[in-house]
């Protein structure tokens, strides 16, 4: 029957999450060792890593800024938020600052549309953004 898996396989997502959170990315060598430990092909691990937006196979900045771009935030001018963030950090969405402090990403709805436009910095939610607030928030992470 399909659906039955080894006892360990279901720990994969949590293992990857842990790796991502401690190192800021999921390295090739960690994917190899996870695959070996679970007894599954590396491609399977890679497949799970690349499926999720919170995982990265390239080193990410110390802090990850996720600016929401879905429709309710778009109605509240989320592209302005993205440009303020980009200006402040000096990078485009999808990039990491050269000093490795910030990665900047655009994300789909983060469930805060009552406070649009909204963003996450790491695990913290910030809503009702304006230019001043964005600068202040990012400064607090400097």
């Amino acid at each position, binding site marked *: 029957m399909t659906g039955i898996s080894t006892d360990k396989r*279901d720990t994969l997502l949590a293992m990857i999450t842990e790796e991502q959170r401690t190192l800021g990315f999921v390295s090739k060598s960690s994917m190899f060792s996870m695959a070996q430990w679970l007894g599954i092909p590396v491609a399977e691990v890679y497949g799970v890593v690349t499926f999720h937006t919170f995982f990265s196979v390239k080193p990410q900045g110390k802090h990850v800024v996720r600016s929401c771009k*879905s429709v309710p935030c*778009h109605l509240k001018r989320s592209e302005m938020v993205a440009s303020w963030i980009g200006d402040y950090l000096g990078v485009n969405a999808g990039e990491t600052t050269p000093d490795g402090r910030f990665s900047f990403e655009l*994300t789909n709805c983060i*469930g805060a549309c*009552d*406070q649009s436009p909204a963003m996450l910095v790491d695990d913290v939610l910030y809503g009702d953004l304006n230019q001043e607030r964005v600068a202040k928030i990012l400064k607090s992470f400097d």
Partner: protein
Amino acid sequence: MSEKRILTENCGLIDPKDINTYLAKQGLQAWRKARKTMTPQQVIEEIKRAGLRGRGGAGFPCGLKWELAGRAEGEKKYLICNADEGEVGTFKDRFLIQNDPFSLLEGMAISAFAIGAEKAFIYLRAEYRYLLEGLRNALRQAEDSGLLEELDIEIREGAGAYICGEESALMNSIEGKRGEARFRPPFPPVNGLFGFPTIINNVETLANVPLIIRNGADWYSRMGTKESKGTKLFCVSGDVSRPGIYELEMGSSLKDLVIGLAGGEDVMMVQVGGSTGRVLPFSMIDIPLAYESVLGSGAVIVFDHSRDMVDFLYRTIEFLNEESCGLCTPCREGIECLIEVLDRLVNGEGVQGDLEILEVSCAPMASASLCGLGQSAPTPVRDSLQYFREAFAGRISQSVLLRSLKSIPSSGKPASYNQD
């Protein structure tokens, strides 16, 4: 028209960090009643009679689902609480977990008792990691209060993928696989997580359970319409002066919600149910909010007359394109096709026949996609074309005009002469 706050009654009144404040508000009474005075079958009967339907979007009768799982043969059974809440415009589950996590846990304990599950999961989206600590704290307190004597609840975190909210993809995700949807049948109540009978319910659905058991099915089913009982949480966003969560009796009108409560003005259109939800022009604003008419996850996104329908639809389909798991062809290729045409339209490069391509692309998606994402992606497309066709047709004639202007060289000579 005012709100009817039964599910959110505790929200703001109790301290979500302290179960004693919950106990002071009849907390855990339903669970005790179920455990001491009812059999699992009676609990299921009560939920069936109450007419509770799934609040996650699809509206499947909750009691029936439980009954299927309760009856299914299996060495063990699982309960999963779906807290993935990825639907655009939806934030009610966040609100419930933030303000009253105990009702959810009590509902889960009752549900597990009814179907005979000893293990449960809460699948929490990564974007809600800031809820994790509060939820864990609530779990610990519930354990200390004896609520979880026979149930082990484990929180599993997602990692950023809308499709993982779809029940079969969610199970794959918990199993450590890519969050792709599964072929069905078999359905989860018979063969779900790790191959065992599994119930998957939304946060709001489970949070309703203690109310029903405590006050009885008759009390509950007196609220609402024929097919939709009780209340529903609505998440209003967009062009309104008071965005937020509103709890209304099922069957309330969209107008009361959008204009009366949330303060919408100059409304052009409302999308109900999130990215794959219905697109309703202002002329339909009197529609009742219920499973029989329009409901979905409870997302209500309001657009005023300053908004552009083509831009709206492009962004909506772009979202679905990014979030489709890509497993089945009708969805993967269908959305690709939609986005190609919409991309042309937003960039002023539309051609005659584009609207027909949009329409033709929808049919196979709706009928042949593997899961709800592909099946209902055509909904906003069809509605937009039906109610706002001029906006799309206008974009094509503008594109044609733009091209004809570009082809006229500024000096009046053929373009090639201008280059040297």
